[in-house]
């Protein structure tokens, strides 16, 4: 198992370099150069220009610049925001918990709803339940996030008044961030009702964000389950006199999960892309919204840092998924 872990870790290294090179080059691929971008329409006098070039290290050869950048990244230095002048990593660290909270809820929603839907569809193949769940998931998959989110807000928040429209917490409460995760912080605080408020703020963004992964997981589970249910070992399991429930939940699902787990890992990337939209619509103070704002302000270090960190998170999640894959599938674990 340790060897498997090390091999998988080794696979991550080239990806790491690839991502840093791409992100590093981004600032050099934009039209005009970063210093003139910073200066804006006022322009900059040549002496100050040279000074700034030196300060940011733009006077050195590209390769040297890259290694300087890489050195910074490895030490947790992603540069300073052009706008706020604060270190990018610091801003990221403040905002990241909000995104994690939303994403984790989103993926939980997707798995908790999507997996059972897929299983139900598979065991009722060709019956109305199958058609119902699959057309629902296709609808969910086809729905653009911004549209879906607006529909949810219009129906549940405006018409029914069940949930708040935006934000993470009602303005009546002030919670000192300790973990940065609102659900945990409100639980730790003495404020009554704060947790319920935090939870109700999460519901609609979670649904908006989790719907597409949910649909993908449901469809993947269904087809994977159908394939497994046709396998001989399922018949053998039934021939042992096991209950249909045990045959499905233990013998079939365990095998059917293998491709589904991979898809869940891939969906995390989709989730971050979705988070940018969802956070903007729901005014959720996470990194999605942060990156969108940075884009509008041409705050390149922030964009670079944000993209790099998201890439790392996606890599990390997929590494974790690969390891899970090994836990679930003995054939992978033992491969030499």
């Amino acid at each position, binding site marked *: 198992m340790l060897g498997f872990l090390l091999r998988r870790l080794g696979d991550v290294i080239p990806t790491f370099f690839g991502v840093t090179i791409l992100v590093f080059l981004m600032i050099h691929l934009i039209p005009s150069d970063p210093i003139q971008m910073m200066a804006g329409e006022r322009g900059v006098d040549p002496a100050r220009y040279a000074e700034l070039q030196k300060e940011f290290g733009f006077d050195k050869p590209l390769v040297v610049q890259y290694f300087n950048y890489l050195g910074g990244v490895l030490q947790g230095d992603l540069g300073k925001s052009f706008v706020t002048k604060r270190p990018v990593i610091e801003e990221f660290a403040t905002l990241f918990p909000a995104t994690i909270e939303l994403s984790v809820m989103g993926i939980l929603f997707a798995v908790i709803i999507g997996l059972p839907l897929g299983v139900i569809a598979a065991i009722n193949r060709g019956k109305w339940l199958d058609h119902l769940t699959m057309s629902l998931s296709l609808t969910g998959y086809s729905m653009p996030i911004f549209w879906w989110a607006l529909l949810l807000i219009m129906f549940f928040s405006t018409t029914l008044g069940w949930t708040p429209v935006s934000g993470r917490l009602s303005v009546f409460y002030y919670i000192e961030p300790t973990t940065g995760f609102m659900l945990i912080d409100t639980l730790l605080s003495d404020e009554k009702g704060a947790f319920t408020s935090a939870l109700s703020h999460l519901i609609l963004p979670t649904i908006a964000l989790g719907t597409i992964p949910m649909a993908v997981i449901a469809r993947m589970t269904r087809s994977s389950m159908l394939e497994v249910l046709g396998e001989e070992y399922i018949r053998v399991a039934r021939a042992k006199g096991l209950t249909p429930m045990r045959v499905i939940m233990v013998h079939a699902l365990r095998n059917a999960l293998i491709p589904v787990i991979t898809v869940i890992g891939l969906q995390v990337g989709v989730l971050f892309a979705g988070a940018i939209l969802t956070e903007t619509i729901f005014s959720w103070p996470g990194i999605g919204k942060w990156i969108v704002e940075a884009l509008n302000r041409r705050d390149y270090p922030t964009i670079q840092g944000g993209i790099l960190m998201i890439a790392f998170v996606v890599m990390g999640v997929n590494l974790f998924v690969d390891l899970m894959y090994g836990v679930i599938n*003995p054939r992978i674990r033992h491969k030499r």
Partner: protein
Amino acid sequence: MALLEVKNLTVEFGSEDKPFRAVDSVSYSVDRGEVLGIVGESGSGKSVSSLAIMGLIDFPGRVTADSLTFDGQDLLKMPAKKRRAITGKDIAMIFQDPMSALNPCFTVEAQIMEALKVHEGGNKKQRRERTLDLLNQVGIPDPKSRMTAYPHQLSGGMSQRIVIAMAIACQPRLLIADEPTTALDVTIQAQIIDLLLKLQDDSDMGLLLITHDLALVSEAANRIQVMYAGQLFESGPADSIFAAPRHPYTQALLEALPERSTGNDRLSTIPGVVPGQYDRPKGCLLAPRCRYANDHCIQDRPEVTDFNGRDVRCFYPLNDQGQPTGQATGQTAGETV
């Protein structure tokens, strides 16, 4: 009373008004300590009939029978729960391809212990000891280390031994072996059959051996049942069937054995294939392939009749010389190539 008594078992697929009969009114019985061989080409309904006995035919398949009794209890009339208590305990089954019969996600131990847990209970330690016993019994070398192996780490022969261990875990009284050696090497085949027969003999099990290997059945079975396109064609004691087949199909099968065609340049074959859902002949199902078929055979379908103490489904059963009886001459109306 026979251990397993099957009367007019029919398995249908497809629509209600135009069903396809994969198994058509087949009757047989298996006694304690008896080996019944069911022989036939691919597509003759051997596997489907055994799956029906196990209760493993799913919707849209329909299983009907005048009676399907095991040890005096009608399997078709009992509630699902009660039937599951018999399935895997008193009646167990071995499948054709051992490499796909084991769940790739679980260890050998887990898969054998599961059957024990469901039917016999006991604690984990007892079940583990019993599993070790079973692996010894089916001749797995170094069983202790194999317990924690995963199926992908085992060879085909080894997997089949595990599958057998799994099937006999709860000491079944009837074992159904559906082509247990087809997927294995020839050298392993004999070992597996010897093992099955030894287990059968030791515990006085009834064994239903389904195969298309006549040579195998001739050595192993007490009685033989020849099936064709879902129908019973001939049944009787093994040695007498081999000595004097009464049905033209049995005769043709025997002639196709390589050891019986010494002196010929080519092996004898039966032209054509088993009719499927859409090309069922109107008369006798064998008529298009039968060397003795005449107009009568092509127009009408024969029923099973008693001929010299044997059940035969043919208008003109063969005599001891292998010639059709009750027919003026061997008209060759249906001989097609």
